[in-house]
C-alpha cells in the first residue's frame, strides 16, 4: 500500500531530522564542556606553580615542578626552561612548539615528553620568570578526545535506533490511519454501488475520523432526503398532471371530431384553459425548484417588507371585497427592512393572501400584518375560514399537496409549497397555525444578517 509506505517513510524522516537536531546539540554542548574543563585544570595548575615561585623562589619552584611530575597523572606536562630553551627540571624533552614563538598565558601547543618520541597535543600555560626562564605547565588533550570518540559512537548508535523506531512508529501509524480511512472508503464504495442506506460506523472516540464519518453521514442523510423528495415530486407531478392532461386530450378529441362550429369553439376554449392550467402548474413547480436551488440570491437587495405588505393588501383589498370578505393590513410600528428578493417575497405574500381569500373567505375578515421581532420579521396572514387540521398541515406545505382537490380548479395546491420554498431561500420558514377558527400562516424571515451567498 503506497500510502502506508509514504506515511512510514515520512515518520522515519521526521524522526531522523528531530534526532539529528537533539544529538547535534548534545555533541556540541559536551565538546564545549570538555574543552572548558580542560582549560580550567590547566590554568589552575599553572597558577599553583606561579604561587610557589612567588612565595619560595626558584628553588621551591623546581621542587614543585618535580613534585608535579612525580605525583601528577600521565597527562600532566610540566617544565622549567632556562632562557636558552634548555630544560632545567620537568618531564618535557624540549620547549613546546606553538604557532609562532611561545607567548605568556594559555595556548595550544605540541609537546614532547622526555624519553617519548611522539609529540602530543596539549593545552599549556606559559609563564616568563623575571630572569628570562620559562615555566610551562599543561595537560595533553588525548584523553578528552577519547571520551568524545566514545560519546560520538554512542550518539551514532542512538541515531540509528531512533531512525528504526521512527520507521516502525510510522508503519504502525500508517496502518491505523489506513484502517480508519479504509473503513470509510469501504462504506462510500458500497454507497456508490447504490446502497444509500449504509452509514459510516463511529468508533465512539469522537476523533477527526469520527467527525469526518459524521459529516459524510449527514451529507448522505441530506442526499437521501432530497432524493426521496424528488421521487415524491416526480410521482405526484405525474399523478397530478394526469387529470388535466386527460381533460385536455378529451377536449381536443371532441373538438376534432365535432362538425358543429359552436361546439368546436367551446371545446377549443376548454383546450386552451386546460393548457393554461397545466402551464401554470409547471411554471410554479419550476419556480419552487429554482427557489430551492438558491439561484436567485444574486438579486437580493434591501427593501421594506411593511411597505410591500401595505401595497399588496391594497391590491387584494377589492378582490377580498368581491369575495364577500374584508382584508385589513396592520401597519408595523418599526421599520421592517429585509435583505431579500422583493419579487419573490411579494409572490409569497400574495399566494398567502390569495389562499386566505379562496379558502377562508366570507367567515370574517382577513388580516395581513408585518412585524419586526427579535432578529426576525414575521409576516402573518390570518383568516377565519375552516383552517387546516394540525395533522394535515405538513402535507399542505408539500408540493402538489392540495388538501381538497374538488374545491378549486386553479392553483393546484402549489401555493404553500412555493411560499415555503421562498422562505427557505431567505433562511426562514413558513409555519401554519390555528387561528381559532381559521388558518394563520406565519412567514418568519431572519432580518439581521445577509444570508450567505452560495
Amino acid at each position: 500500500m503506497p500510502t502506508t509506505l509514504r506515511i512510514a517513510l515520512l515518520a522515519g524522516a521526521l524522526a531522523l531530522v528531530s534526532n539529528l537536531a537533539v544529538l547535534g546539540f548534545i555533541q556540541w554542548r559536551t565538546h564545549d564542556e570538555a574543552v572548558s574543563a580542560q582549560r580550567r585544570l590547566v590554568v589552575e595548575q599553572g597558577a599553583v606553580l606561579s604561587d610557589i615561585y612567588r612565595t619560595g623562589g626558584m628553588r621551591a619552584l623546581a621542587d614543585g615542578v618535580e613534585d608535579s611530575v612525580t605525583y601528577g597523572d600521565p597527562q600532566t606536562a610540566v617544565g622549567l626552561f632556562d632562557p636558552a630553551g634548555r630544560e632545567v627540571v620537568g618531564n618535557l624533552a624540549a620547549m613546546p612548539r606553538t604557532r609562532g614563538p611561545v607567548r605568556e598565558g594559555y595556548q595550544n601547543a605540541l609537546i614532547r615528553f622526555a624519553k617519548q618520541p611522539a609529540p602530543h597535543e596539549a593545552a599549556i600555560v606559559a609563564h616568563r620568570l623575571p630572569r628570562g626562564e620559562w615555566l610551562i605547565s599543561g595537560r595533553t588533550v588525548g584523553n578528552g578526545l577519547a571520551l568524545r570518540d566514545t560519546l560520538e559512537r554512542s550518539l551514532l548508535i542512538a541515531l540509528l535506533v531512533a531512525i528504526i523506531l521512527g520507521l516502525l512508529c510510522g508503519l504502525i501509524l500508517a496502518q491505523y490511519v489506513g484502517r480508519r480511512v479504509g473503513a470509510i472508503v469501504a462504506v462510500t464504495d458500497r454507497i456508490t454501488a447504490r446502497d444509500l442506506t449504509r452509514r459510516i460506523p463511529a468508533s465512539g472516540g469522537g476523533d477527526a475520523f469520527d467527525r469526518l464519518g459524521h459529516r459524510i453521514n449527514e451529507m448522505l442523510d441530506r442526499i437521501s432526503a432530497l432524493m426521496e423528495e424528488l421521487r415524491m415530486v416526480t410521482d405526484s407531478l405525474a399523478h397530478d398532471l394526469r387529470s388535466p392532461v386527460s381533460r385536455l386530450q378529451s377536449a381536443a378529441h371532441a373538438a376534432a371530431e365535432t362538425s358543429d362550429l359552436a361546439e368546436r369553439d367551446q371545446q377549443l376554449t376548454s383546450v386552451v384553459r386546460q393548457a393554461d392550467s397545466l402551464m401554470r402548474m409547471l411554471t410554479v413547480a419550476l419556480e419552487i425548484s429554482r427557489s430551492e436551488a438558491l439561484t436567485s440570491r444574486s438579486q437580493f437587495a434591501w427593501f421594506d417588507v411593511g411597505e410591500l405588505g401595505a401595497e399588496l393588501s391594497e391590491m387584494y383589498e377589492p378582490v377580498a371585497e368581491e369575495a364577500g370578505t374584508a382584508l385589513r393590513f396592520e401597519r408595523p410600528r418599526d421599520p421592517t427592512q429585509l435583505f431579500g428578493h422583493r419579487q419573490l417575497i411579494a409572490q409569497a405574500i400574495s399566494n398567502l393572501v390569495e389562499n386566505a381569500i379562496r379558502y377562508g373567505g366570507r367567515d370574517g375578515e382577513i388580516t395581513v400584518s408585518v412585524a419586526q421581532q427579535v432578529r426576525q420579521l414575521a409576516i402573518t396572514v390570518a383568516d377565519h375560514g375552516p383552517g387546516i387540521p394540525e395533522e394535515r398541515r405538513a402535507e399542505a406545505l408539500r408540493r402538489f399537496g392540495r388538501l381538497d382537490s374538488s374545491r378549486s380548479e386553479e392553483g393546484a395546491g402549489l401555493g404553500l409549497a412555493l411560499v415555503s420554498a421562498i422562505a427557505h431561500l431567505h433562511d426562514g420558514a413558513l409555519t401554519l397555525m390555528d387561528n381559532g377558527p381559521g388558518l394563520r400562516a406565519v412567514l418568519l424571515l431572519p432580518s439581521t444578517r445577509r444570508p450567505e451567498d452560495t
Partner: protein
Amino acid sequence: MGRKILLVEDDRETATYLSNGLGQEGHSVEQATNGQDGLFRATDGSFDLIILDRMLPVLDGISVLKALRAAKVETPVLVLSALASVGDRIEGLESGSDDYLVKPFSFAELLARVNALLRRREARIDPADHRLTVGDLEIDPLARMVRRSGKKIDLKPREYLLLEYFARNEGRVVTRTMLLEQVWDYHFDPGTNVIDVHVSRLRRKLEDGFEKPLLHTVRGAGYMLAA
C-alpha cells in the same frame, strides 16, 4: 402602417407562426435562426423592433442583447423565453430588453406587447403634449387630474396609474400580465382575478353616468381604452 420587425427564433414552427401573424397585422418580418446571424442583421439599426428568443444556437439571446446595447443599437427588444421564473424575467429585463414574454404565450399577448413597444418608439420620436385625451376623457399627468366631459373623476393613486397606462396605450390591447408588470411592478402570475377586479372598478368610475363605454374588454387578450 407596417413596421420592420426582426424575428430571431431557431424553432421553425414558432418562427413561421409568428411571422405569418405579424405579417397579417401589416408588419414586414425578417427572420434569423441563430444568435450570430440575428446580431449581424440587428446591428444595422434599420428595424423598428427586434423579437429575440432567449435560447439560440451559436450565440444566446442575452449575449446578443448585451452586444447590441454595447454597440449603442437602441432598437426596442422583446425577449421570448421558456424560462419562467421571476429571477429569469428580471435578468432578461436587466440585460437591456424592453419587455419579456414567457413561452408559451398567446399570439394576442405577443401582439399587444409588440404594439406597445412600437408605440413607445413613436412617443419617443415626437415629444408628446403632456395632456392625454381619449375621446371626452382628459388626463393631466402633472396634476394627476382626470376629467370626463369636464366632470372631475376621483381616482385612488393606483387607479390613476392604471388609467394613465391605458391612456398611453390608447387604442391598443393591453394584457393582464402587462398591467401587473407595468402598473404594479410584479413579475409573477397571480392565481386570482386581481387585475380584472381593479379594471372593473376603474371602469365603473369612468363610465358610471356616461353612455359611451371607454374601457373595453378584448376577449381572450385583455383590455383596451378607446373612445
